[in-house]
């Protein structure tokens, strides 16, 4: 057992011990956790990211849901202890299916089991990897002049240049991107472009944007996985590369940027590992829609609700974002990044990005 594993098992046992003691002393057993809500994330000036605030909630056996979650917690603790002892690991999805055999404690959805794994991270201050749980979603792809080394599944260390040693789909970011697995060796690139959609990622690759402008291109694949965000953060910190985020122009893309730059609400307990506070938003901005006269769609009711929710989100509580959100609401329009193709396939690489990146001072 490694030191981390030891620490993880110890803290899990503490949870079980607390529940046991509460029952033994005739109390209604409960767990207290920070509330994982939008209204309970606070800016942490030390790390420059958003973390959970002080508000807490109780998971108590007084209610059926609470009681069931406590019971599930006990089962999960036992399951993790078993894995640690037997040197196994499982995906979050596998754990969800394992719970089929837990009768009353069976999870009703995978969201529920994922959420519980995060709850345990929060209570123990460990990472889910320490619990032998991994996400099944793999990270996204990278193309650019970046050299890394990765220890493969057979324990062999491979040296990979993410432009010259990979195919057109790039280097696939593994689940675990911590130092014992992936080392960043060197780069000639000047900045990182994190791109929301596969279509735009491929467009930039085909147009040779990475070579022409000396950029590392990262495909976010929509809302980015933990490993993708962690990888971007390491590029930013270790390679000292500025990061820009290039997404669609709609309320959901704003949230993608927020989770890269400020931290996601769901993972606010580990924001300092995942978020890149200096990341900048390149577009599509609300003003791009008018400035570039882009083809648009009307905002749906759900979009409007999402924008209004963002107005109350502390992560967007600055002048720039309030302006963007209000402009979009006023326009009542949204645009995809691929809408730039209105002006031809090269427009995005020849004109849009160079123009915007120069204005931002990323390109000089």
């Amino acid at each position, binding site marked *: 057992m490694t030191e981390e594993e030891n620490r993880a098992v110890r803290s899990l046992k503490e949870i079980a011990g607390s529940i046991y003691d509460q029952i033994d002393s005739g109390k209604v057993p409960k767990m207290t956790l920070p509330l994982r809500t939008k209204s309970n994330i606070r800016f942490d000036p030390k790390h420059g990211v958003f973390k959970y605030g002080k508000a807490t909630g109780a998971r108590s056996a007084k*209610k059926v849901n609470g009681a069931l979650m406590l019971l599930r917690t006990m089962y999960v603790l036992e399951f993790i202890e078993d894995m640690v002892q037997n040197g196994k690991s499982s995906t979050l999805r596998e754990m969800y299916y394992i719970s089929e055999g837990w009768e*009353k404690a069976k999870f009703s959805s995978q969201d529920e089991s994922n959420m519980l794994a995060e709850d345990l991270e929060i209570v123990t201050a460990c990472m889910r990897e320490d619990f032998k749980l991994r996400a099944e979603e793999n990270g996204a792809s990278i193309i650019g002049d970046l050299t890394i080394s990765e220890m493969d599944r057979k324990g062999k260390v491979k040296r990979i240049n993410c432009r010259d040693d990979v195919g057109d789909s790039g280097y696939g970011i593994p689940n675990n991107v911590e130092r014992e697995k992936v080392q960043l060796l060197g780069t000639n690139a000047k900045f990182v472009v994190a791109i929301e959609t596969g279509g735009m990622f491929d467009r930039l690759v085909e147009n040779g944007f990475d070579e022409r402008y000396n950029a590392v291109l990262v495909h976010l694949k929509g809302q980015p996985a933990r490993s993708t965000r962690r990888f971007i953060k390491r590029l930013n910190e270790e390679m000292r590369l500025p990061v820009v985020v290039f997404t669609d122009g709609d309320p959901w893309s704003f949230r993608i940027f927020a989770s890269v730059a400020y931290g996601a609400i769901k993972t606010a307990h580990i924001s300092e590992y995942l978020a890149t506070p200096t990341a900048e938003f390149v577009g599509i901005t609300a003003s791009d829609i008018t400035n570039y006269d882009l083809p648009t769609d009307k905002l749906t009711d759900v979009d409007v609700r999402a924008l209004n929710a963002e107005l109350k989100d502390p992560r967007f509580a600055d002048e720039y974002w309030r302006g963007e959100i209000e402009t979009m609401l006023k326009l009542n329009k949204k645009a995809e990044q691929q809408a730039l193709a209105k002006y031809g396939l090269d427009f995005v690489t020849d004109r849009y990005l160079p123009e915007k990146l120069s204005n931002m001072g990323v390109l000089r």
Partner: protein
Amino acid sequence: MGSIADELAKKQKEISVSEFFERNRHILGFDSQSKALIMGIKEAVDNSLDACEEADVLPEIVVTVERTEKDEFRVSVEDNGPGIVKKAIPNVFGRLLYGSRFHAVRQSRGQQGIGISATVMYGQITTGKPAVVISKTGADDVAWRMEIMVNTKRNLPDVLKEDPFIWDGKEHGTKITYHMNGRYVGGRQSVLEYLRQTAIVNPHARITFTDPDGRRTTFERATDRMPPATKEIKPHPSGLELGTLMSMAKETKNKSLGRFLQLDFSRISDRLAKDICERAGLDMMADPAKLTLEEHKRLLAAIGTAKIMAPPTDCLSPIGAQLIKKGLRNVLDEVRPEFYAPPVTRDPKVHSGNPFLVEVGIVYGGDLPKDAPVQILRFANRVPLLYQQGACAITKAVESVDWRRYGLEQRGGSGIPFGPAIILVHVASTKVPFTSEAKEAIATIPEIQAEIELALKICGRSLKTHLNKKETKSKTRVKFEIVQEILPLIAQKSAKIVGKPVPKLSGSITKIMNVVWVDDAVSFEKGHHRIRVSIYNYTPQSQKFNLHMVLPPGAFDYKGLQFFPTEVREDGKVTWELPKIASTERLDINFSLSGLNKEDYDENEIYASGIDPVAIIGAEPLPGDWDLKGLEVTESVEAKGPAPEEEEEEVDYDEAKEALNDD
């Protein structure tokens, strides 16, 4: 000038009643093809049921509808009634306004004597074919078979053919077969639905129906008891109209005004007759047939100011709470309703001199549709009303009750409520005031509507009590699951992980529940009702109190009893003085009821005394009048909610979480 008048006079001629109805068939309800088919059957079945009841025979009715051409049907209705004597057959079936009940003040289905002959007439108008009637009056009598048509000009029957005939295997009864143009439909307004509803309010009848596709449905008898025979009464003077008074005076056999008043009306005594005559300035000995119009007016005015007792009401025959429930159950069992509210039979009241009474039943839950308007089953003198729902006093009454107070949905607190329910309303009267001759809707007479509303509210209260009870139980059951199943598992698992013995749960359990919970069940097996009452003391202290139940009188079975009640009263009230129940302990009471039918008992009525009512769930506080009289007043006792929960000092973590995946 005279010649024009002469000309006109030549054209003016008498229109026979049958001719009038032929041209105005909608007045009798034959206004659409699908409706005509139902109306015809309804008239025949009404007659059959009335005849059987008059002869005190349990009705056995067989209805068959066959398609003979695209729009033509052959309909036959056969009963086991007393039969009709040969010479009366033509008039009963071939002459409008011929009947035995028109002049009788009495609760019966048919009244005017229009229905069946109108059916025969409608059949012959649309198909040109005569009706065939077979009737037999006794085992040793010969049956007669007649082909009958209505002579619409003269309102007299034409008998086309008559033959004596041996009706094998039939002791007595009547069968009518006629052809009619019509349309056969299913649904809420259909022959099957009409017969189904007829079966509900006539649980003593057995009705068999074969539809045009040959499918046979039988509504079995739910009781072998005949409804008590209705008595005929004399007209009551209140609400009397001048014309009626005049024609009664003209036709009376009594030669003096005093005797006429006394004998031809109900509730006029010798003294009262004298008083009325004095006030009207008329001689008691005057010949009623010779009164002038002026004198009639004075007489009517005098009657109007006299204080006259309400009419006798024993002439009405309610279905009765028990049989309404039986009838509903018999026909609705397939939708497995969760609750039959105890039906309400109101005491008779009077409208315009006519006694009437209202009965209401409510069925709730099961497979009944949840988000549709409730189904209203309307009945007048045991006859289903399928049409003109919106114009009917019953519907108006249902609409004006605020059903939200009784657990049904209703926008704005008026209109037809929504929910998985059927509301049955029966109005019985010596004269049901219909809105038209088609007898499809009851007129909105204020007295009647008010009675219906009252009955609906009483029945609604039982429904609400049931729903409250159910909600309390399901809330408690959820907590029960926590302390009985989930908490023990949490304790075991946590003990295993930390490697210690499983902790005692009593402290946690009493903090979660802090209440005494009474859980009960009724089952029926091998002719006995088995009843279980479990008492869980989930409070931190031990508890000692008394438990009371109301059971059907005389049904309590002492056999195999382990825990004897302290008192079993003749009226069915049973009391147990419970022993002390320690904290987190459970006590079970099991016993049986004997000699009841399954449907006679399905929900326990449990009360507790000697314990704080908020500390116990599943038993109501003992009503104050327990020792005084019956428990009928419990309709006003609202079910108690669960004990108020302690103020939650913390936010519930799992409920505060938002949809976190959208960022």
